[in-house]
Every structure is written in structure tokens, then in C-alpha cells.
């Protein structure tokens, strides 16, 4: 049988091999809109793949979306897959998405931490970090969402290599992080950034590393409120929104703070569904409802970025 992305089940979890196969097929079957870009190699030499959705133009303004930086949060990779497919399915049908893609490019990294993800399938379902070896420690891995050069090593990260919040030896020490940094800085025209995590039903924006409000606080807060409103409309899932430091806790070295401090004003992070029964181990039956309710919130943020160039 010839392999095809059309036989792929979005309502199931998949291994990294299955996801990478799907990405290959998906990009080749939709080459008018989608291309696959390799932005680097993980610590264990797996390709770091990004899907680019573009209708043309050169170095257009763009949106960055990543899922799966914490490898055990499988619902985020699954949401990324569904979202990729949704972009292709809805282009030309959904007027908002269509006009977004006629103006902006979207970059989507579905498996942001491939080594960790592979490890959750093969060895330890609870694994959250990268898989790099820490010299002088028996504990492996770095929390890739504490490794960014945004108050690196500060409050809300750990210098203990055995901790799940270990920030790593230096900013961008993790190749999974450095590859994104190089790609985004090299592109130079990314206008919105969305990192997707799970779980606890939150939509947050900078800052995480300090309690101070950003100069754009009011606009980001209003946009978060709007995005949460449309998300809730779908299935009644209630989200809390606000800056990271005011909503949950101070966290240093996170991706959205780095993005914001590097000029990407519309920087947000989602924490997906919390059913109160499964934590981040959401049953596969929750994948599509979770992705479906997240979709209009994503579009709201991206569409706002499109209408508010800076």
C-alpha cells in the first residue's frame, strides 16, 4: 500500500517515527502550501523539523508555533498535528485563515524535543526534559523551557541537574533551543510566537521572569481575553489568562520571554486542557476536542498580529 497522510488518525497518539513519516507525506502531498524545513539536529541526532505554511512571497512576516518542548505532554504534539492538517484543510474555505495565509507565513514545529519524546515512548513515559548528558551528574537532560536567554538561571529555574526545572549549563546550551534561536533570528521577521504546553488551562504572555508588566501589557491582556473567549465558546472549557508571573509563578529562561525581549510582541503560551482526571495524560479521545477549541484561539492571536503590524 502506498503511504498517505490521509490515512493518519489524528484522534490517536503516535510515535516519533509515525509523526516524521506523516510530516514527509503531508509536505509532499501539499507542496503548494507546505514545505518541510530542517532547522538542526537534536542532541541524539534526530532532525528538528519545522513545517512552513506559505502562499508565496519572500521573507513575509511570520508566526512561530511550537508544541512538545516538554516531551511527556503528548496532547501538545497531537494538537500540533491536527492544527497542521487544519491549516491545509481550511485554507481557501475559512476566510480568516485564508487572508492570514495570503499575508503571513506560519512556521510550526510539532516535535520540539524529539529525543525526549522518543524517550517517553521507549523508556520513561514521565520524561519532560531533553536527553543531553550533564557532565559531573548522573542525571540527564535540561528543561528546554528554562534554557532560553531570558534572565537565564534566575527565579523559577533550578541549578540541580536532577531537577525537572534544570536550566542547563548555559543559555541555549540545548541544541533544540539554539536551533530555534538561530532560525528565528535568521528569519528576522517573526511577528507572533505561540508555545503550546499542557495542562492547566491557561493562556499567558510575558513576563515570566519578573513581576513587571511589559509595555504592551494592556494589548496582550485584551488579546488573551479575546482568545480565551473564543476558546471557551467551543466546549465551555474555561481558561485563565495573564502574564506568566502574575498568573502562576516567576519562571526564568522561558521561550516567550526570550521571544518578547527579541522583538516579538505577540508572544503567548498555552497550557491545554485539564480534565482533573488525567493530568497531561489525556486519553486520545480528548485530542480532537482539545485541538478544536484551541484552533479559534490561535486564529484570534494570529489575526490580531496580522492586523496590527509593527
Amino acid at each position: 500500500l502506498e503511504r498517505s497522510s490521509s490515512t493518519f488518525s489524528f484522534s490517536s497518539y503516535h510515535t516519533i517515527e509515525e509523526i516524521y513519516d506523516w510530516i514527509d507525506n503531508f509536505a509532499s502531498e501539499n507542496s503548494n502550501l507546505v514545505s518541510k524545513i530542517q532547522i538542526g539536529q537534536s542532541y541524539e541526532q534526530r532532525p528538528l523539523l519545522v513545517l512552513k505554511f506559505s502562499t508565496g512571497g519572500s521573507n513575509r512576516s511570520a508566526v512561530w508555533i511550537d508544541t512538545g518542548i516538554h516531551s511527556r505532554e503528548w496532547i501538545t504534539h497531537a494538537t500540533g498535528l491536527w492544527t497542521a492538517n487544519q491549516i491545509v484543510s481550511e485554507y481557501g474555505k475559512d476566510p480568516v485563515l485564508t487572508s492570514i495565509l495570503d499575508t503571513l507565513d506560519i512556521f510550526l514545529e510539532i516535535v520540539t524535543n524529539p529525543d525526549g519524546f522518543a524517550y517517553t515512548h521507549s523508556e520513561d513515559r514521565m520524561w519532560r526534559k531533553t536527553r543531553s548528558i550533564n557532565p559531573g551528574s548522573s542525571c540527564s537532560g535540561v528543561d528546554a523551557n528554562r534554557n532560553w536567554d531570558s534572565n537565564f538561571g534566575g527565579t523559577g529555574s533550578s541549578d540541580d541537574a536532577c531537577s525537572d526545572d534544570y536550566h542547563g549549563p548555559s543559555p541555549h546550551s540545548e541544541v533544540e533551543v539554539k536551533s530555534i534561536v538561530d532560525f528565528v533570528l535568521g528569519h528576522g521577521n517573526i511577528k507572533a510566537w505561540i508555545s503550546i504546553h499542557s495542562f492547566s488551562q491557561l493562556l499567558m504572555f510575558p513576563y515570566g521572569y519578573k513581576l513587571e508588566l511589559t509595555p504592551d501589557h494592556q494589548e496582550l491582556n485584551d488579546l488573551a481575553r479575546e482568545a480565551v473567549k473564543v476558546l471557551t465558546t467551543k466546549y465551555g472549557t474555561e481558561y485563565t489568562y495573564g502574564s506568566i508571573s502574575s498568573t502562576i509563578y516567576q519562571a526564568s529562561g522561558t521561550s516567550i520571554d526570550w521571544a518578547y525581549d527579541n522583538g516579538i510582541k505577540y508572544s503567548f503560551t498555552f497550557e491545554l486542557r485539564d480534565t482533573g482526571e488525567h493530568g497531561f495524560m489525556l486519553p486520545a479521545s480528548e485530542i480532537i476536542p482539545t485541538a478544536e477549541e484551541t484552533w479559534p484561539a490561535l486564529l484570534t492571536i494570529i489575526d490580531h498580529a496580522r492586523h496590527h503590524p509593527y
Partner: protein
Amino acid sequence: LKLFSGDQVLRIKAKDETQLAVLKDLVHFKHLQVDFWRSPLSPNLPVDVRVPSCNLQAVKAYLKSHGIPYSVMIDDVQVLIDKEREAMAASRR
């Protein structure tokens, strides 16, 4: 493949800052090997923590001794993992 048989995830609701501080101390008790899924942040947010089966008694006793209410969110983590793997296998078939 690492097994998590009998590990539970507790959903804990601290009543006030004092109880929250008690929960934060759990992070430092490395011998208990707890894995915070939702960290102790503020009294109005739940805390979820996976506790290895061998340390369940000790952690529950610790919570009880400080009057901290909790419920069992996941009774056996391994059961959930097994179901997940079965569902993946079924989908592949």
C-alpha cells in the same frame, strides 16, 4: 520500559500560604521522589503530584499531619499508561 505500577497522582488543595509552604517543602524531600505535575504556586490553584507507590504512605501521612486536603486524581499511573499503549496499538491495527 520504566513501570509506574501503583504510583498515584494526588490533587492537593492548600487552604492558605502556610499549607502552600508545607507543600513546597516536599520538593526538597528528595527521598520521597515526588514528581510535581502542577507545582505549589498559590492557594487558589490545585497542586498535582505523582507519588511513587513505595512512598505513598509517607506522603499521605505528611499531608494528613499538616491538615492538607487531597484527593486521588490517578489511582494507578501504570494502568493509564497501559491503556494509552493499547489505544495506540488498536489505532495502528
